[in-house]
């Protein structure tokens, strides 16, 4: 295990201490695992809370700030946060205008956020939960835990965050988040596994010249192990799977080419060149590209491609200013 850490059990708390030291504009509780805008609660504003297991940085803690999340809850590595953290974050950001829980669709996230939402409602905080489930690699989702939430989390957090910042009400903000999810799809490919610090060994073994198609963001094996392909082949596999589920022809797209954590930016740009070619060849337009390691799976090598079919409104909200450690533009 080649990791830049102190003790496996302390990785998340240590990283949160680092986040706190670097970002005084955030209120961080490294023990509980909460990251909150220092100016929260923002009067009259619908607040957005997300979270999940750690190991996906900058998601979610790095997306807390004006124009995006009001708070994030960071569980242990790949482990949903506990309800206590979610309640604390929810209470810290609640201004009375309601709180949205953006929850990636994993049993653990769903259950812990649900428990927290119930307890928050006991305290008269109105909570709307929005489920993020964009990963088309999960086939047959009726007979599974359902599609995983991956890259669309970033899209939903950014776009709903912008609408909340504009002063929209709880129902509208939740609706736009759901609209983003409905219009988004993702597919991931792993060229290497990753190692959960506390486990100490890789989540799977991959021979030289092999890759995993259809992986999530928790180091799990994918749907299929195949011969390692070229960037063009990998991109084709991902976009073909997405296109089969949500036709891309004629779409105006927000596209995320997302490094999984161990793949350097140069390769992500190689992949983006292939994505641009593929989409151009299939009648789709990239209105907004984003390339980088935004939704990671520790040091896994590989790439996830996420797309969202934009509308003029969604494009406007995507372009709106955002000021977070992980995403920053405008103003």
């Amino acid at each position, binding site marked *: 295990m080649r990791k830049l850490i102190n003790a496996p059990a302390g990785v998340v708390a240590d990283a949160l201490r680092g986040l706190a030291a670097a970002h005084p504009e955030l209120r961080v509780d490294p023990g509980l695992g909460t990251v909150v805008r220092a100016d929260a609660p923002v009067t009259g504003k619908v607040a957005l809370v997300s979270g999940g297991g750690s190991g996906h940085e900058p998601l979610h803690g790095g997306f807390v700030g004006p124009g995006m999340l009001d708070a994030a809850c960071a569980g242990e590595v790949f482990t949903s946060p506990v309800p206590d953290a979610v309640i604390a974050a929810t209470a810290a950001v609640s201004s009375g205008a309601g709180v949205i829980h953006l929850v990636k669709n994993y049993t653990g996230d769903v259950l812990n956020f649900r428990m927290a939402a119930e307890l928050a409602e006991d305290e008269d905080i109105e909570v709307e939960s929005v489920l993020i489930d964009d990963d088309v690699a999960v086939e047959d989702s009726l007979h599974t835990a359902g599609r995983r939430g991956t890259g669309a989390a970033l899209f939903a957090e950014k776009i709903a965050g912008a609408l909340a910042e504009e002063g929209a009400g709880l129902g509208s903000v939740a609706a736009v988040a759901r609209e983003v999810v409905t219009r988004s799809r993702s597919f991931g490919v792993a060229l290497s596994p990753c190692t959960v610090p*506390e486990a100490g060994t890789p989540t799977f073994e991959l021979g030289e010249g092999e890759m995993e198609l259809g992986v999530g963001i928790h180091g799990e094996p994918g749907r299929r192990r195949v011969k390692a392909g070229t960037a063009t082949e990998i991109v084709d596999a991902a976009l073909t799977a997405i296109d089969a589920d949500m036709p891309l022809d004629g779409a105006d797209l927000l596209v995320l080419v997302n490094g999984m954590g161990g793949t350097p930016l140069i390769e992500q740009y190689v992949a983006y060149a292939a994505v641009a070619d593929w989409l151009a060849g299939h009648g789709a337009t990239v209105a907004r590209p984003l390339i980088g390691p935004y939704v990671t799976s520790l040091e896994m090598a590989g790439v996830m491609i996420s797309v969202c079919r934009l509308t003029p409104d969604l494009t406007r909200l995507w372009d709106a200013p955002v000021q977070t450690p992980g995403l920053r533009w405008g103003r």
Partner: protein
Amino acid sequence: MSAAAWIIRAAALVASEADRLTRLDAAIGDGDHGHNLDRGFTAAAAAIDGAAVDREAPPGRILIAAGRAIVSRTGGASGPLYGTALRRAGKALGDAPVVSAAGLGDALRAALDGVTELGGASEGDKTMVDALAPAVAACENALAEGGDLETCARAAAEAAAAGADATVPLQARKGRASYLGERSIGHIDPGAVSTALILRALAETAS
């Protein structure tokens, strides 16, 4: 039966098996189950050992406190599920000062109901339910045959272990393993294994 002894024994077993549980979870999940449970049960045992819980309190109260600690510290899917199971079991026991064989049957049944209501899994979905459901049935059978607390607890533990083993050929339909589709076949479910472990702790401390 001492609920405190059960939880403390369960915490010890989980701690010593944490690496194995995590390895099982790495094969078809995300490689954290053992460390999740270890964190949760350590917190539960600490709550019982510390000032947080009156060790002389009725067993039901102790299980509720343990369940709360597990919910508060475990995270993941197993945290809410085990936490709810223990809280429901505790509620079923109420303020009874001692646990009878029948009380144990009610408690385990309530735990199972809590898990299936919250998680929505049925038997055969390759989850902890595949260990817990046969355990409840075996406990109720033993009870119907006039078994005492120890007998009922042992029956539950044995059925849970067999149920866990029987998850190997199943294809997962709940939890992370379900993402793997057919690739989940051939692996044991880590949550079923941990359920068997927790019920082994019950059998070892029920007397």
